[in-house]
């Protein structure tokens, strides 16, 4: 079987990648969660990570958010005043980095939101951690973030616990983008939502991505979501990356046996 041609390193893209992860491995006892995984995300692009349960995709995303450290591996973000392997950061630096320079949207809104506080408060908390001390600014910047997430402003002081699933995801999104991070991580952001709501949320994400040139990493088992959102796709299986490439190429001309199975299995 002849291999597809191996690709060269970038020649035209002169901007270095925003996110570089190399050789990340993680075991939990006997279970191999990640095995020698590497990933690159360039500024302004959307990387989709697709895989079934147990593929390690969510674990990888958690690593990107510094919620977990691997057994081995290197993680760098090309951001001002930041250098070295981020897995080696101390607790305080890690917290500040996560809170102020990376945004994350979880599948379960309960994980990402303070359900009993107001929606605007959830966004304000992020700003407060970053040092915003003007009440007027907290309101204004909160409104901006909620508006960009296409959340109805007349409900900005409603508590997430009172809102629908789609609205809760929008609050998470507003919270994630409030500090205008360069990197946004999304873990199954629309899974569990009604189909019509899914479409709307994805649409908001696409618009946001175009307007703010924010880099995104989207993890999903739903190929439709990945196809809609991603520029490049990484296919994971049992902790390993089995294939990666341009989004349309992965879906139209999958090379690896597993990817072919995955793509053809779509109803």
């Amino acid at each position, binding site marked *: 079987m002849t291999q597809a041609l191996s690709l060269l390193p970038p020649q035209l893209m002169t901007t270095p990648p925003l996110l570089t992860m190399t050789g990340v491995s993680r075991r939990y006892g006997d279970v191999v969660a990640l095995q020698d995984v590497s990933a690159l995300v360039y500024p302004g692009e959307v990387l989709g990570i697709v895989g079934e349960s147990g593929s390690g995709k969510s674990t990888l995303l958690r690593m990107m958010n510094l919620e977990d450290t691997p057994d081995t591996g290197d993680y760098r973000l090309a951001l001002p005043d930041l250098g070295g392997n981020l897995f080696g950061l101390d*607790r*305080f630096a890690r*917290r500040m980095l996560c*809170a102020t320079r990376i945004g994350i949207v979880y599948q379960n809104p309960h994980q990402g939101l*303070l359900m009993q*506080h*107001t929606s*605007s*408060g959830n966004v*304000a*908390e*992020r700003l*407060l*951690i970053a040092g915003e*001390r*003007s*009440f*007027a600014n*907290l309101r204004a910047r909160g409104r901006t973030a909620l508006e960009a997430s296409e959340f109805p402003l007349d409900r900005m*002081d409603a508590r997430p616990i009172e809102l629908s699933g789609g609205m809760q995801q929008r609050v998470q999104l507003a919270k994630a983008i409030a500090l205008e991070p360069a990197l946004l991580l999304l873990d199954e952001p629309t899974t569990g939502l009604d189909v019509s709501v899914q479409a709307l949320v994805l649409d908001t994400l696409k618009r946001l991505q175009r307007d703010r040139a924010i880099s995104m990493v989207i993890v999903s088992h739903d190929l439709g979501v990945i196809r809609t959102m991603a520029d490049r796709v990484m296919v994971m299986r049992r902790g390993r990356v089995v294939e990666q490439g341009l989004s349309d190429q992965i879906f139209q001309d999958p090379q690896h046996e597993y990817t072919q199975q995955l793509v053809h299995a779509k109803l």
Partner: protein
Amino acid sequence: MSIAQLTKAWQPMSYGFLDASAKRELRRKMLKAIAVPGCQMPYASREVPMARGWGTGGLQVTLTLLKPSSVVKVIDQGADDSVNAASIRSFLSKVSGAAETWDTLDASLIQSRHRIPEERLHAGQILVLQVPNPEPLRPVEPNMSIARQMHADADYGRLWLILYEQIVRSGRIMEGAAYPSLVNGRHVMTPSPIPRWDVPKLHMAQHLTFLSAGREKRLYAVPPFTKVEPLVFSDVPFKVEDHGALTCHRSGVNGFYMNEIPQGDGGSAFELSDSHLGIKAIRQAEGEADQIGATWYQNGHLA
């Protein structure tokens, strides 16, 4: 060697009631508290002849600091003559031989429940405040271990969030007493339930302040010349109670924190909370040579 040479005569109790090892532990924790202003230090809170919730924390700190040359003043809501204040004061002098006083200017140690005297304290004086609940993060995080971690991480976002939501809901910050304050730019403390009027007195003060909670077994300190900044938004300023224009109906003094006394006709009369200040004012008016010291507030405003 005789027994008499090797031992001391029996005494009914140690000097200052607490035994030497208790005081030693307290002293170490108090020094630690000074070293990290505003940070709560846990200590082994001892039994004293008073029930928990009545000032045992403050009492243990005062007992540790007592010397024969100490002059102690004890107030409860500003009054030296309240039953509890009087009991504590007499106990203190009984176990140490220290002198008692009602005059802020003469005291070297001042133990207080919920008020700071109006006359400025100076470098030779130590203020000990009784604290019911030392944890400012309790409304945010009831779990003590997590709260400790939050202090260590300077993770006060959720505390700020509560203040933000108070303004959203009511248009202003609702904290009346025990206004959470940032000490030395690092730790947030609750300054015990003193009124907002008193919080600015802790900021860059000449004196040392201890805050101690006996039931909760934590103590913390504000060393002299340390920043104490109430948590405020830059555009929603910190406001003290509106007492600047009130007059004490007994002493005629105005411009200080007042107790409100409801009258039979439905109205209110006001009385100086710092009762000995009122007494001195009355004595002065009657021609006695009583000295009133410099005060933090002048003409109803912070000087």
